[in-house]
């Protein structure tokens, strides 16, 4: 049994619902026990850090303090979102690196009767936990439906392999953890040199031209390598590549169709879990081709319409519309 404290983050309940659903679905076969931090708050993403230092870190540290209060036997916190993971890891690391700063953050926390001892929790990303704690052998044992013939791009984005304060990943630019995991699922892994390039982060909201160029590079590179699907470990990457692909296509007058799924969705599929339970169909660039390649029945695109109320057979007799011939006959009679 593997116990972790879970910090889901805001996206997991909204735009990355498929990530949360599929994570819950694969937890059981992996014997992964996740306990959500009670009443956690937003980590501030990349927005608060650029506004004001102490409040930004106090916002993050409230979650660390709540997590350490609840820690019951385990000190390991897992975050599936890259930005959340980095923020938690960063707050912990800087509070350790500069004790004076740690003291200031704790002074702020004290206003809410909380405190956090830097270094007392182990902050981990979900991919790291699955590959290094649970192990690829366990993953492989759970594969019922190998992803044979599916060409998958492993895309990690920035914030997990970098800065990687505690050196948990094999490389900053070309880490292989996700590749190995996909191989364990039986997929054909695409050699994708842009695997840790930036998806643009918040740029679609700030400087669309910058963002679209970054997205175009990623999608074009996946398309050139004849990938069936991209897979990611980050809600922001998924949202940008999935949600803004249409607008990017309009901007460059291109016609790319490159679906992107969370790695947990592909794991679930390989574990033989129903696509509907894994959040399939929630993506805007349809990943139907993935299911077709594997011969898995796709969930209905839209929820089926409720059945119409059956008409009572003994209802009042209703007039039936007249046929053309009857109308002609009536006309003739009227003329007479």
């Amino acid at each position: 049994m593997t116990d972790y404290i879970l910090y889901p983050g805001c996206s997991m309940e909204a735009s990355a619902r498929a990530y949360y659903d599929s994570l819950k679905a694969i937890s059981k076969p992996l014997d992964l026990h996740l306990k959500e931090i009670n009443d956690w708050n937003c980590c501030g993403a990349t927005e608060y850090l650029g506004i004001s230092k102490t409040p930004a870190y106090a916002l993050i540290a409230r979650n660390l303090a709540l997590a350490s209060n609840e820690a019951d036997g385990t000190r390991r916190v897992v975050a599936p979102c890259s930005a959340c993971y980095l923020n938690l890891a960063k707050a912990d690391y800087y509070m350790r690196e500069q004790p004076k700063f740690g003291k200031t953050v704790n002074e702020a926390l004290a206003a809410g009767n909380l405190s956090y001892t830097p270094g007392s929790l182990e902050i981990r990303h979900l991919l790291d936990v699955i590959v290094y704690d649970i192990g690829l052998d366990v993953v492989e044992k759970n594969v019922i439906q190998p992803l044979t013939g599916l060409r998958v791009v492993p895309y990690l984005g920035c914030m997990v392999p970098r800065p990687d304060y505690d050196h948990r990943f094999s490389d900053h630019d070309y880490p292989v953890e996700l590749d190995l995991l996909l191989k364990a699922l039986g997929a054909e892994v695409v050699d994708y040199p842009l695997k840790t390039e930036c998806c643009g982060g918040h740029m679609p909201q700030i400087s669309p031209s910058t963002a679209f160029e970054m997205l175009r590079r990623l999608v074009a590179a996946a398309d050139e390598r004849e990938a069936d699907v991209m897979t990611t470990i980050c809600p922001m990457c998924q949202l940008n590549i999935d949600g803004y692909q249409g607008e990017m296509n309009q901007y460059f007058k291109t016609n790319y169709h490159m679906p992107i799924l969370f790695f947990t969705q592909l794991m679930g599929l390989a574990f033989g879990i129903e696509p509907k339970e894994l959040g399939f169909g929630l993506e805007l660039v349809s990943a139907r081709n993935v299911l077709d390649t594997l011969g898995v029945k796709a969930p209905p695109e839209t929820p089926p319409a409720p059945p119409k109320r059956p008409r009572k057979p003994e209802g009042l007799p209703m007039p039936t519309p007249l046929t053309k011939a009857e109308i002609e006959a009536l006309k003739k009679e009227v003329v007479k």
Partner: protein
Amino acid sequence: MTDAPLISSAPVSDPQPIEDLTLLKEVASRTAGVSNLEMCIQCGTCGGSCPSAGEMDHTPRRLFAMLRAGMREEALKSNTPWICVSCYHCIVRCPQNIHITDVMYTLKDMAVEAKLVQNSTAPDFSQTFIDMVEEFGRSFEMGLASFHYMKHFPFRLANMMPMGMGMLTKKRMSLTPTRIKNMKQLKAILKRAKELEAKQ
């Protein structure tokens, strides 16, 4: 990157003495952790690693030289921190272990404070995002997106419609915000944090 000369041809009114590192020290002290900013050897690895350097008016390397030279106004007017996408390529490649991304966050904060931000919608976006977090304890994508696009990109709304509708019908975006239970505690913590920040 523009080719504009770093120093205008007009005589500089009050040149900073070479030892005056007030600005550099201020930026370093306002950055979380140990920034190592003063250790920059001007190698340029940061700019060479940056995916968005092409749109920056100064590369990070040049910006750090400006900080050392005490060019406060020029440095805080730079679009560089606003174009930074927080990808951390520069941080892991910097031979001097300078926390470059975090220095960029500090420069954003200082630019807003000095009212030197040049036409960027970024500070507004960050502020709206944070206003919602301070109100609900959670981010609120629907509120943020609609507010920000209406204000800054009204002409993009037509192109955005398919995405917005898709996100709503697939329930990937909620029409109503989620609020944490103990907002009182969070507000007290943030209030104290702001007081502490002002004292520094």
